[in-house]
């Protein structure tokens, strides 16, 4: 597209003449990232101050120029490529750590701050920033937030999503907003994180920082089979232990890595596991005993311990060199990040090996065993068309195999443009249409990172949504009736929170505990189940949830009322119905999912104003966690953004909104 000269001049006035580039060389050098996509933008704007962003976007909005934000451009999904041309906003210069507050445990940073740099700055203060993507020495926090990146520590500490407290964002029309987790209402910060810049541009982040663990101990274990390796991880979690990291690799990778890095890994093993425990010394010692016991029960072949920094770094040497070992062998390496429920890992990995053999592709296989997230590193020659074609097919089949196993096409790399076609395989038409509606609510002119995440023509490509269970059918009936009678209503469970006398609906049949999975440690429960019933059912199976045993209240209420915000991090899957009958199915028994907008966070704390949550899948624990204390119920404040979302998801205003008492 052609950029009007007036727009170029306006941009030059804002950021300075030397910071705006339209020459061919600069455009070509901003046409790529770490993925295979190469798409040339029409103008590059180097942002040097956060205050420039809103002004730049206002100019782009005025001239209807699409834009993409670029930090380190280290993503693997083509998230910062520009298929429609337009502007690239380069924010790498916004790399200032604005504030570190060790009393309130937070840091305020600009989006271009390198993740590892923040960690290095925090270390002397005795703190750390938990998300640790493998690329943390060069990726930016803004990029991590856009992709909801995570790393080896995700199992214990969670991904980027769980560590962002608030964000300043500029929407595509140039409006500046501050979204804060501490405010009541839907978790819009959670919705924004992982949206790959399609909702707007993050200009500042407030992130959670944690005190450094007192002690860390690393263990290496090898097994005769991949199944033993995975089941030992499940066994460990079943004992109530959440390791700091659980990293694994298969035999082929093990050999390649050992040949290259000489980390001392036994080459005869079929699978290798690196486990790291952190905390107080006594706690680690106690957990080590359990770990040894579990590993021996699962036929561990070799077991080694490292407690000093030197020993630990030696054990990690091989794992950290895995990418390098591959990068040296091939001119190009593509890293996939399919994720499946932990129990499905061995079966999926076997399927992946079959696919790799079929397409004659050499790859290493690394995985975050605790999360079910695996990274096949596929070697190919970018210059050979036959190679790239076979690679494309192999990647497609690998990711489809993940979806077939109840997983996702992306655990931490995002969808971007590379995987958006597969979104129609993972999600049904209804869920994808909700994604499209959300995108429209945030960015009606489709200017902010367009053509990402949502597949083209998904109405034709994606399958129709499966009908709801019989028990959830009354929800649809209630919506239909309200549409016909034009009588809006509140969604209630026991009406214990709202205690409203206005029209409200309750579906008593939503009272089933669908599944308690003792392998993946998840429970799938309908939202009408009371917290008493839920906890009783869990206790019968010797598992626990973080929700308290209150006499009143349902699971749906606990999730939607906003009284238990810390519970959101435990929710891994959701089923909901919109007032127009659109059925949403998102997530599942997955620890992480970076494919699509986080619909769990959209409904979390939304007080039922967008739709009816019918079913939730959430984490359960082998040992009783500290139950969450409820916060007081505060009705949602209807901000402009919430009104826009409400308009997108419930245009007929069928669901009532609680009025804030004055």
């Amino acid at each position, binding site marked *: 597209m052609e950029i009007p000269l007036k727009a170029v001049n306006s941009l030059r006035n804002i950021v300075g003449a030397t910071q705006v580039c339209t020459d061919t*060389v600069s455009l070509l*050098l901003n046409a790529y990232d*770490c993925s295979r996509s190469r798409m040339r933008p029409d103008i590059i704007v180097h942002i040097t101050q956060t205050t420039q962003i809103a002004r730049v976007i206002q100019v782009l909005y005025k001239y209807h120029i699409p834009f993409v934000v670029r930090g380190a451009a*280290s993503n693997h999904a083509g998230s910062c490529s520009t298929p429609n041309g337009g502007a690239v906003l380069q924010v790498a210069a916004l790399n200032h750590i604005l504030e570190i507050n060790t009393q309130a445990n937070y840091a305020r940073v600009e989006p271009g701050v390198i993740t590892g740099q923040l960690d290095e700055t925090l270390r002397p203060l005795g703190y750390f920033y938990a998300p640790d993507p493998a690329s943390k020495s060069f990726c930016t926090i803004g990029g991590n937030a856009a992709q909801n990146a995570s790393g080896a520590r995700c199992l214990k500490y969670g991904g980027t999503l769980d560590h962002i407290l608030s964000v300043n964002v500029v929407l595509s029309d140039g409006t500046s907003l501050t979204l804060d987790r501490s405010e009541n209402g839907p978790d819009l910060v959670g919705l924004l994180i992982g949206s790959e810049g399609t909702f707007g541009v993050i200009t500042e982040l407030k992130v959670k920082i944690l005190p450094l663990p007192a002690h860390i101990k690393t263990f290496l274990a090898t097994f005769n089979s991949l199944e033993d390796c995975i089941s030992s991880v499940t066994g460990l979690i079943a004992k109530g232990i959440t390791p700091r990291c659980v990293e694994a690799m298969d035999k082929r990778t093990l050999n390649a890595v050992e040949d290259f890095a000489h980390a001392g890994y036994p080459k005869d093993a079929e699978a290798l596991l690196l486990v790291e425990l952190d905390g107080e010394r006594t706690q680690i010692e106690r957990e080590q005993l359990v770990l040894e016991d579990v590993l021996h029960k699962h036929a561990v072949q070799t077991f080694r311990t490292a407690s000093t920094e030197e020993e630990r770094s030696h054990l990690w040497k091989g794992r950290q060199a895995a990418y390098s070992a591959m990068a040296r062998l091939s001119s190009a390496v593509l890293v996939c990040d399919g994720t499946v429920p932990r129990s499905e890992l061995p079966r999926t990995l076997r399927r992946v090996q079959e696919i790799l053999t079929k397409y004659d592709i050499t790859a290493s296989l690394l995985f975050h065993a605790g999360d079910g997230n695996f990274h096949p590193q596929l070697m190919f020659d970018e210059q050979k068309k036959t190679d790239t074609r076979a690679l494309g097919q192999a990647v497609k089949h690998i990711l489809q195999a993940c979806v077939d196993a109840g997983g996702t096409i992306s655990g931490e790399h995002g969808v971007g443009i590379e995987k958006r076609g597969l979104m129609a395989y993972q999600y049904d038409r209804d869920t994808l249409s909700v994604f499209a509606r959300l995108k429209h609510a945030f960015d009606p002119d489709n200017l902010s990172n367009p053509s990402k995440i949502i597949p083209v023509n998904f109405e034709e490509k994606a399958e129709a949504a499966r009908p709801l269970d019989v028990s959830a059918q009354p929800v649809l009936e209630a919506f239909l009736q309200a549409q016909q009678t034009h009588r809006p209503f509140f969604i209630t469970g026991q009406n214990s929170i709202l205690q409203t006398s206005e029209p409200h609906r309750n579906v008593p049949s939503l009272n089933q505990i669908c599944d308690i999975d003792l392998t993946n440690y998840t429970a799938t429960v309908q939202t009408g189940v009371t917290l008493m019933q839920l906890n009783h059912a869990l206790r019968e199976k010797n598992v626990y949830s973080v929700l308290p045993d209150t006499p009143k209240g349902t699971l749906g209420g606990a999730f939607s009322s906003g009284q238990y915000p810390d519970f959101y991090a435990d929710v891994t899957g959701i089923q909901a119905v919109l007032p127009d009958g659109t059925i949403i199915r998102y997530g599942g028994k997955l620890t992480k999912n970076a494919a699509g907008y986080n619909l769990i966070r959209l409904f979390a704390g939304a007080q039922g104003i967008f739709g009816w949550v019918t079913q939730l899948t959430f984490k359960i624990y082998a040992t009783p966690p500290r139950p969450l204390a409820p916060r007081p119920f505060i009705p949602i404040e209807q901000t402009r953004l919430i009104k826009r979302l409400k308009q997108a998801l419930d245009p007929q205003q069928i669901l009532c909104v609680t009025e804030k008492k004055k």
Partner: protein
Amino acid sequence: MSYPCLEPIYLQRHIDALQTPLGEREVYKSVAYCNRCGACMPICPTYQFYKQEIFSPRGRNQLLQLALDGKIKITSKNQQILDSLRTCTLCGKCSEVCAGQIPTAEHVLEMRRALHKNFLPYLLYLFLHLRTTNPKLFARVTRVALFLRKTGILFILRILQLTRLFGLSFLNYMCHILPAHIVSLRTAFEKAGLNPDNETPKQIYLPSLEAEFLLPDIACKTLDFAQRKARTAVWQNTPCGLFEYVYGDLRCCRRTVRNLIERHEQAGKLPLITDSIDVYYFLKKASQLFAKHPNMAKRARDFSAQVKFVTDILPTPKRTSLLPPVQLEYGSLFERRSQATQQAHQFLFALFGQNLVECLYTDADIPAFGYSFVDKKENARIGAKVIEKLVRTRTNSVVALSGLAALETIYLLKKYKIQTKVAHIVEVIQNR
């Protein structure tokens, strides 16, 4: 299989195959190994400042890739390309952090060769080029220049700003960085009681340009240590080809290296010691100059195997008492992770123990091998960051691995009025 090249009609002016840590690779193949992951970006001194892709190692590699694919032309008419190639310090820090160890500095040199541009002031280039083409004349001109400086004539020319008039403004900077008093190498050897002309040597010392003409102390100390180990002959005023490799014509560089190899073979293929880390890295990869001539490449490999850095002849250090904090200045061309650098690090660690200050990997190093004449502005900026590093780490002294790096550091410290001492690694033991 033939790969695309930058100037098909001037193949001789370009490298046929690069010697990378992962084997020999044609330039096209070498650059194709870049996965565009961006690991090299935060470490690059120019990207740290500009924050623009074109000033990053990834950008420079992609520039070469695009040129080889015929999508852009490397031409001096494009200011962006010129700036990108000029600003690269060739430090090789990017290769160090790269998983595929892509030799970006070599790629930049390839593009500079396609531009037929060396970015040095023209007269300075002619003067230094003379060392390759006519070393005797070069020595005479140098002596005259040093005489003019000693008598103050050069100072008067500078005051009257006549140096600018004759295109000699680089002399101003040169006068700043050169030591106040320079004695000839012969005099220095005589003073130290060293004999540089051993008829039956067991090893050869090839002094770098700076050790020979500007810092004879380094040459003396190197020869002293070398002779303590074995009989050593000094090859005075012998060009090694590095200057032509970085700033000149590759054909001239090949000739020079071939001459050096022939002389080395005639001398009995003895170990060849150099006091400059830049020369060491260059000669270690001499065979890449002759990739198309297997016989010559083999001879070059045999020659490279005999090249040693001064750390090989230094005596094992003994720590006696607590010494003030010291820092190893890694500033060099092409790479930082070689065995020689590690040896230097181990040597200093043995001597200084915990007082050997380790820096962050993103910290700046002194730009090497005449970068200050290529891009004065950028050099000053990086210099300021080096000072920031020294102040932050409260380093008492800096140990450089080449005379040029030592000279640049001394000037920088003088400019910022910082009391840190600078020494070449051979000077560390005696200076104690």
